[in-house]
């Protein structure tokens, strides 16, 4: 533990100082609210021209599509993370690579869903995760395959192959596509959680575990609730076997729920997650969507990140906390751009943003 702290102090203080400086440049709550009140994408792009997204957004033409603008935001986020990776060394560099590996799962999930929906490679390419370790050539090769089990075997590991049994390209549509996406994303989150749980120790593990642990717990919860929506049986085989606070007993209670409303009530009364999921049933009934769970998780992780920044400065937790803040900023920005382009009412748009209190 002392050696970890000393190595962060001697080796990572350059990186830590940089990301503390970057943190002060993140878009604040008021700025995001102001952006959500914009009349057009052009207005938003103009307002962001001076910030970290300016370089990518300035490349867009006046008639850019929402997909192109969102991609520019993602590239701005990826640039920021890549500059941190280049500035890091030793264990912290390895930690950041593991964080990037998490994006591979998101890239594979997107690939499977796009492929199943019959979209072209170009459509997929415009939305792919720029942070993923898998390169374009590798993804193109996977996109040319038609059998889901082969794609999963080539891109993932035996855990993912096991978890994806029972799905095929022909039946991935609607909520089921979301379920498949959640299974693959959950596998990525689990790999990251296992890395933190097994390889880190002391303040590093202590600071990172709640962030990664809550991600896998909420991924399992989302899978169970989504399976209730589509009436899918045998979801147990697709769940993440690891857990943090959502233990086996809680999972059994969720699985035993007869419908979505009951499952959300069970989640809202959980001894740990009640703090972020109170009123879950009502939120679902109002929106008929599970996106509020993702927003609740992001808000919770923002709070954890804020606490990490206030605590002991020499741990890799600071790096993860910054990445969470930065990723959330990019997602909020993408939601604002898409919402403004779609003409969503301001209140509805704000409900999609994870803002710090």
């Amino acid at each position, binding site marked *: 533990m002392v050696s970890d702290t000393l190595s962060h*102090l*001697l080796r990572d*203080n350059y990186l830590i*100082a*940089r990301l*503390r*400086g970057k*943190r*002060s440049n993140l878009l604040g709550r008021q700025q995001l609210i102001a952006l959500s009140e914009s009349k057009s994408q052009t207005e938003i792009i103009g307002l962001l021209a001076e910030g970290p997204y300016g370089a990518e957004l300035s490349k867009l033409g006046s008639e850019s599509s929402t997909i192109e603008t969102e991609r520019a935001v993602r590239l701005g986020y990826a640039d920021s993370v890549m500059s941190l990776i280049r500035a890091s060394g030793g264990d912290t560099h390895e930690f950041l690579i593991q964080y990037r590996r998490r994006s591979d799962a998101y890239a594979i999930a997107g690939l499977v869903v796009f492929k199943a929906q019959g979209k072209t490679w170009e459509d997929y390419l415009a939305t792919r995760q720029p942070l993923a370790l898998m390169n374009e050539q590798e993804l193109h090769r996977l996109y040319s395959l038609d059998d889901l089990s082969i794609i999963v075997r080539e891109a993932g590991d035996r855990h993912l192959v096991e978890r994806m049994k029972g799905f095929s390209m022909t039946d991935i549509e609607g909520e089921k596509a979301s379920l498949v996406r959640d299974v693959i994303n959950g596998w990525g989150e689990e790999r990251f959680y296992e890395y933190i749980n097994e390889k880190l120790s002391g303040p590093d593990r202590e600071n990172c575990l709640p962030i990664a642990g809550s991600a896998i717990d909420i991924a399992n919860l989302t899978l169970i609730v989504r399976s209730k929506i589509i009436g899918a049986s045998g979801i147990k085989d697709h769940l993440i076997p690891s857990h943090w606070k959502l233990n086996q007993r809680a999972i059994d209670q969720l699985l035993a729920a007869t419908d979505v409303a009951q499952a959300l009530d069970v989640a809202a009364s959980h001894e740990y997650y009640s703090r972020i999921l109170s009123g879950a049933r009502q939120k679902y009934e109002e929106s008929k969507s599970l996106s509020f769970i993702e927003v609740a998780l992001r808000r919770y992780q923002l709070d954890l990140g804020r606490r990490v920044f206030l605590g002991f*400065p020499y741990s890799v937790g600071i790096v993860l906390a910054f990445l969470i803040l930065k990723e959330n900023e990019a997602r909020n920005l993408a939601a604002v751009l898409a919402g403004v382009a779609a003409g969503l009412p301001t209140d509805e748009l704000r409900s999609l943003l994870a803002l710090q209190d």
Partner: protein
Amino acid sequence: MVCVDLSTCPTFWASLGAGLSVLLSAIGAGLGIGISGPAIAGAGVERPEVMLKTFIATILAEALAIYGLVVGLLSIFAIPALTTIEGGTRIFAAGLTMGAASLGAGFGIGAAGSAMASATAEKPDIFSRAVISLILAEALAIYALVTALLLVFGAK
């Protein structure tokens, strides 16, 4: 003075003290600069406007080497006038005090300076408060400097 037995030789002990003062103080200063320097550079990359004021950490760390040099030089100047073993050990103690204190203060300045640079990069208005711990770390070396000077001036 020609020494037959090194353990009772005032010149030997005084020379060792002078050497330790300079050596350990230089290591302390190196630690302070080595730890705080990268953080100051990192803060400067993101916020160039705070870089100049956060340089105070490296200046204070460098001062440790100067304290060690002052004690070392005064010790060397005092060596020709030494006549007793007590005088030699007083100068040895002075050198050890200055050197060891500089080592500790150097680590403290490095760690506090690094945290100060990071905090200032995030919130520039916090600088005037964050710098206090840095000054307190430097004060440790000043206590040792005063003690070492009294020891050197009292050596006969």
